């Protein structure tokens, strides 16, 4: 029996160094199931490195990461994806020879036709492919990408690429999403719509979110809890209104 705790993600004293740089220097945090948690901090404080470590792109020098009751420390990214923990990239990474529709569709889990041999037998995967195509269109509509869904991915705007990142993660049947600056480059109206969508996903599907975002005025309206990172460490945490009042946070953002 797997122990299902209330905390879907537990990061326990994680360290990640690049040579002498301690990019992540003993971070511990917990994300309760079905919550929206913010992770803020000035540039270079180690937020992206932490995401890369949680999602399996880097192996931590020290520390442990638990997801959904399982130890995922050191697992490769595609295994972590299969468990339902999916990350997006701060600088969008799209598949340039595929359309927006295919970028979303191709991110689906357990596609039978991705098996080299079954791919040759159309009947084994065609009906699944059709089902997934409908689902892909649903997420495209959800993220507002419908007007550009037959464009090749490099032809859409930077803001649309950020939305595409989110649509792909949703297509991957995520239980929890790690979003790295999802609203960067997205106009304020779209950004609020995006966060509104995130809130709906949480309330309707029970998804959990850990979100890095620099636009605090938007972020703080939607998150339950906030962690503040500085120089690789968590220096403050709390409800958004508490963090907003915290003098430490003011010092970091103003003093650097």
């Amino acid at each position, binding site marked *: 029996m797997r122990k299902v705790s209330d905390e879907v993600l537990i990061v326990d004293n994680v360290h990640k160094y690049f040579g002498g740089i301690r990019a992540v220097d003993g971070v511990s945090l917990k994300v309760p199931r079905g919550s929206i948690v913010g992770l803020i901090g000035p540039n270079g404080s180690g937020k992206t490195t932490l995401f890369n470590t949680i999602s399996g792109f880097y192996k931590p020098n020290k520390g442990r990461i638990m997801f959904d009751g399982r130890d995922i420390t050191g697992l490769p990214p595609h295994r972590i994806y299969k468990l339902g923990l*999916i990350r997006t990239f701060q600088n969008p990474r799209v598949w340039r*020879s*595929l359309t927006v529709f295919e970028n979303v569709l*191709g991110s689906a889990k357990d596609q039978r*036709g991705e098996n*080299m041999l079954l791919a040759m037998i159309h009947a084994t*995967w065609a009906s699944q492919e059709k089902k*997934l195509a409908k689902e*892909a269109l649903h997420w495209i509509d959800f993220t507002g990408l419908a007007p550009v869904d037959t464009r090749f991915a490099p032809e859409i705007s930077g803001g649309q690429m950020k939305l595409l990142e989110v649509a792909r993660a949703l297509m991957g049947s995520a239980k929890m999403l790690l979003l790295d600056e999802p609203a960067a480059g997205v106009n304020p109206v779209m950004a609020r719509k995006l966060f509104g969508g995130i809130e709906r996903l949480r309330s309707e599907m029970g998804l959990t979110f850990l979100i890095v975002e620099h636009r605090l005025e938007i972020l703080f309206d939607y998150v339950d809890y906030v962690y503040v990172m500085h120089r690789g460490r968590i220096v403050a945490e709390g409800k958004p209104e508490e963090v907003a009042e915290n003098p430490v946070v003011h010092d970091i953002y103003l003093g650097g």
Partner: protein
Amino acid sequence: MNIISFLVTYLSVAAVYALLAISMNIDYGWAGIPDFGKAAFIAAGGIAAAIVATRIVPPLMLHMHPANPSKLSFFTYYNGKILPAITAHPIDTWIVFIISILLGGIIAAGFAVIFSYPAIRLKEDYLAIALLMAAQIVWLFLRVYTPIMGGTMSMTLPSPSFKPIARALFHSTSPSAIDAAKALFLWGLVGVFLYYAEKQMNSPFGRMLRMVRDDEYAAAALGKNVARARLESLIVASFLAGVAGAVYVLIHFSSVNPDYFMPDLTFFVLTLVLVGGVGNNIGSIIGALLIALLYRASYIFGTSLGFSWGSYLYYMIIGLAILITIFVRPNGILPEKPVRTPAWDVYALVRGKQPWFLRRILMRGRGKVNTGEKSE
């Protein structure tokens, strides 16, 4: 020189190049693996043909002792006894051919696993260098290790006999009828490769390879096992390269020599794909047709000039072809096509429109979809 015989020979050569190009298009074109070891995988076909002709067919089918190419008595025994015994029956030459292409494919697939193992998880550059070194090692090994194909002596191989095919098709066994039968057979084989490649490519598997090629980090984050996808594409491409290699030695040369598989063969095959269109199977075939024509024509013209360097003219011509491609059509003569799966039928149904680049393909034939929309 007779134009018909030029054309028939040219078409046979082009067909062999097309087989090699399709293989290159799978790992280099779709998966973006810089397969600088292609010559080694083609060599696997040569190794297979040599082993089949000397050691497998004689004891199994002819009740003769196997021949060892490293022995002094090899040529008298192999050329004097074994070859005449195989070529006495056209059926036996075809058995040699079929076993050789299968074994060639299997050896090449095995090579792919072994040679890519050290570098498949690393960045593409390391894989490219590892594969380039593998091709160099295989070539040099075949030169010095004589028991496989006798070192650099050039061993004659029993070509499959096209007489029965020529007789059936043209009611003639004249040399030109035989050559035509050979060209037809080779283009049939190109058809098989093309059918396979198109089917494999227009599937979620083909789409996954493009994801890995376009951005391996995004592919990994969205659940693709990048190392495994690369390995799989290398295995299928190498299997085809091994098959094509056996065809190359048995039908194109009727002999085998390690120098047929010098590492620069890889870059010749790469040229076919670069000129024809990276990622497009038909483009690869067009590249093969074009480069084979330039090759034959410039070789014949060059040698007729009477200069000592005349036979090298084709290097210049092919270099020029690459340059013109890069400047005029950087994606090759035929650029890559979108992946076609039934997902686009669903798209058309739900959205009531088809994307411009698929409209033509879907309207033709099977993918008839009532879009409830007049064609614009």
